[in-house]
């Protein structure tokens, strides 16, 4: 691989290339056009023209504002003729920043294209020197459906990811270093302000910092409970249903799967309503005489109650999922292991902890990591159940808010865009650390063949 890379590097192409190859450093596609690939050369050259036109018309203008992010305020001007105040259009920093990010991506794309076409021209030149035939345009098209099928299949999905995932991410990350926020009226015009917001979030003494550590703590506690309780209980449920002696396996499985077949936002909203102070659950308890008439259990109003309720409801959703996912894998456990355990006189509990759990942990570590990440970013459960509440007066984060729901509140409700972006980046950093550490320490990474 590395040998081939060296063979057709850009440096060599410039040093040893013939006239056409060298020419393509300035006129992209010249190398291809000069080496019998005229159509491809013209297409690449058109890309270059389009790029230059874009830069002259728009790109350079955008980039020139990258440092200041615009500073012309909206002005109110008295129009004598119409006898009204008119507004002149001021700069909009958020738009300027977005266009700058897009322009930078376009520049990066043209650089990549430049490198590729340089190497390609040099390769073509070498092939011709060796007397090999060069694929025609038609052959290239045909190969897009054969040897190069991945290019055909993946270019559109990759474009989608680039435009609607990577560009937005870079844009959001860059927002973290600005003063884009409702605080101080920086919603239309804002500037770069470095690491100020990061310092604010990490500072435990400040109001925002205190809330951050608080929310972070609950997020981690929640994710651990939600992931592992679901995992273990779901696995036990699957094993109970799959026992030899359990009758009506399909029926039981159906009962539990039905609850996740209902769309999640529907069941979450229903749960939320059922557990309100006057909701169905309290009514049921009152009618049964378990609590006094008029009294109600504080499912959403008391912090501890709300937290436990959320974890329990998440079990209601998560256990059937785990059951569904692990059923197939559980049946893959070699039966010799169980037979050996039975011979040694191990009871069901012992067997579970010595055989089933280690095996499952070994096989499903990647799945566990994914579900842990999913739980840290579990927006729906919190937002639709408790809405993050109960909230202390003066705080932006509620007692059951996760980092994601707090991020939502900070950006959509409060319009503290820069703080929201910082929270997003912090979430990413935390998740990266957790993922790497767990993965490195997992049995499947350390000892790949333990159960093979």
């Amino acid at each position, binding site marked *: 691989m590395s040998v081939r890379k060296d063979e057709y590097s850009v440096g060599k192409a410039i040093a040893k290339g013939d006239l056409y190859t060298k020419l393509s450093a300035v006129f992209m596609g010249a190398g291809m056009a000069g080496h019998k690939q005229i159509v491809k050369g013209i297409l690449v050259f058109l890309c270059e023209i389009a790029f230059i036109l874009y830069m002259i018309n728009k790109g350079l203008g955008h980039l020139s504002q990258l440092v200041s992010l615009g500073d012309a305020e909206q002005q109110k001007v008295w129009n004598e003729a119409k006898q009204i105040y008119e507004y002149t259009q001021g700069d909009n920093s958020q738009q300027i920043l977005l266009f700058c990010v897009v322009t930078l991506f376009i520049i990066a794309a043209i650089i990549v294209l430049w490198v590729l076409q340089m190497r390609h021209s040099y390769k073509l030149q070498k092939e011709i020197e060796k007397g090999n035939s060069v694929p025609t345009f038609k052959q290239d098209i045909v190969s897009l459906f054969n040897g190069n099928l991945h290019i055909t299949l993946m270019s559109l999905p990759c474009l*989608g990811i680039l435009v609607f995932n*990577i560009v*937005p991410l870079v844009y959001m990350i860059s927002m973290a270093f600005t003063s884009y926020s409702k605080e101080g009226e920086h919603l239309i015009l804002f500037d770069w302000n470095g690491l100020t917001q990061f310092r604010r979030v990490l500072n435990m003494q400040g109001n925002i910092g205190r809330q951050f550590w608080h929310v972070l703590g609950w997020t981690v506690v929640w994710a651990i409970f939600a992931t592992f309780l679901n995992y273990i209980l779901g696995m036990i449920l699957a094993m*109970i249903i799959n026992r030899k002696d359990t009758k009506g396996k399909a029926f039981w499985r159906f009962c539990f799967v*039905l609850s996740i*077949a209902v769309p999640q*936002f529907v069941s979450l909203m229903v749960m939320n309503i*059922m557990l309100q102070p006057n909701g169905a659950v309290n009514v049921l308890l009152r009618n049964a005489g378990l609590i006094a008439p008029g009294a109600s259990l504080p499912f959403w109003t008391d912090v501890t109650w709300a937290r436990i309720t959320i974890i329990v409801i998440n079990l209601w959703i998560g256990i059937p999922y785990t059951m569904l996912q692990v059923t*197939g894998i559980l049946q893959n456990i070699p039966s010799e292991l169980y037979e050996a355990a039975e011979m040694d006189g191990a009871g069901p509990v012992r067997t579970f902890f010595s055989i089933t759990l280690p095996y499952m942990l070994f096989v499903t570590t990647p799945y566990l990591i994914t579900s842990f990440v999913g739980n840290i970013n579990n927006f729906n459960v919190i937002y639709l159940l408790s809405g993050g509440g109960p909230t202390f007066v003066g705080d932006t984060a509620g007692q059951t808010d996760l980092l994601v729901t707090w991020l939502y509140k900070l950006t*959509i409700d409060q319009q503290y865009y820069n703080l929201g972006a910082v929270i997003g980046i912090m979430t990413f950093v935390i998740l990266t650390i957790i993922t790497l550490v767990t993965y490195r320490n997992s049995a499947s990474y350390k000892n790949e063949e333990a159960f093979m």
Partner: protein
Amino acid sequence: MTAMQKKRNRRNPRRVAVNIAVHILLGILAVIWLLPIFWIILTSFRAEPGAYTNTFLPQGYTLNNYVKLFTDRNVINFPKMFTNTLIIAIICCFISTFFVLSVAYSLSRMRFAFRKPYMNLAMILGLFPGFMTMIAQYFILKSMGLTEGSAIRIGLIVVYSACTGLGFQIAKGYFDTIPRSIDEAAIIDGATQWQVFTKITMPLAKPIVIYTVMTSFIAPWVDFIFAKVLCRANADQWTVAIGLWNMLQKEYIYQWYTCFAAGAVIISIPIAALFLYMQRFYVEGMSGAVKG
């Protein structure tokens, strides 16, 4: 296990007791799991108005909630939301299915320099909170003019389907379990990769194709948060999920609560049916994904 042993086991009183206990436990759990579903179905037929009542079971039953849901179009136009969501779901279904299967096939069957980096990138991107990109996506769509009027629908389609190429894991896991020797034999017989993809792998991977089609179709019905951010107050562009959510907000809940229940039931029936049908494909894909 011999027949003798089996007989002994069945008579063993301890074993019988355990079996009874297990079935009772499963019964209790099943009741807990089904209770909310049972309750929402009853509520959808409840005759008394309002969100909260003094009894767990309705006092009277009626079909009016369903009738109102489909005929009262002034405040919350449910039929319109239903068509909105249906259109979006159908288009998304085509695009996402193509994206997911293409990416999964390429990663499973082709070998190219960008393969490993792509898989790592997908993992890294998955670590960012999805909501973080949402805000920026909103700004991007806004600068494209896709956040006003009926263009919102296009915006939603774009957002639901654009990044689906990142969710290839289950389909790839399934493709990985199809023996490569089948492809190789076809290629020796002169088939192109494209033919292998469409004529050999797709039919063999029918379960996962069905699974992908269904999940892509369901996604717009159950997404709630992005539709809310993008539609804002444009009530005629609302999808079903936002409509239902709004029925539970303070200003509507008294009038619309039982209709919410009716809407929830109506939406849940087809989605639940699809889900129950595709769950076995999901299980197969999962065990494939874990193995691979």
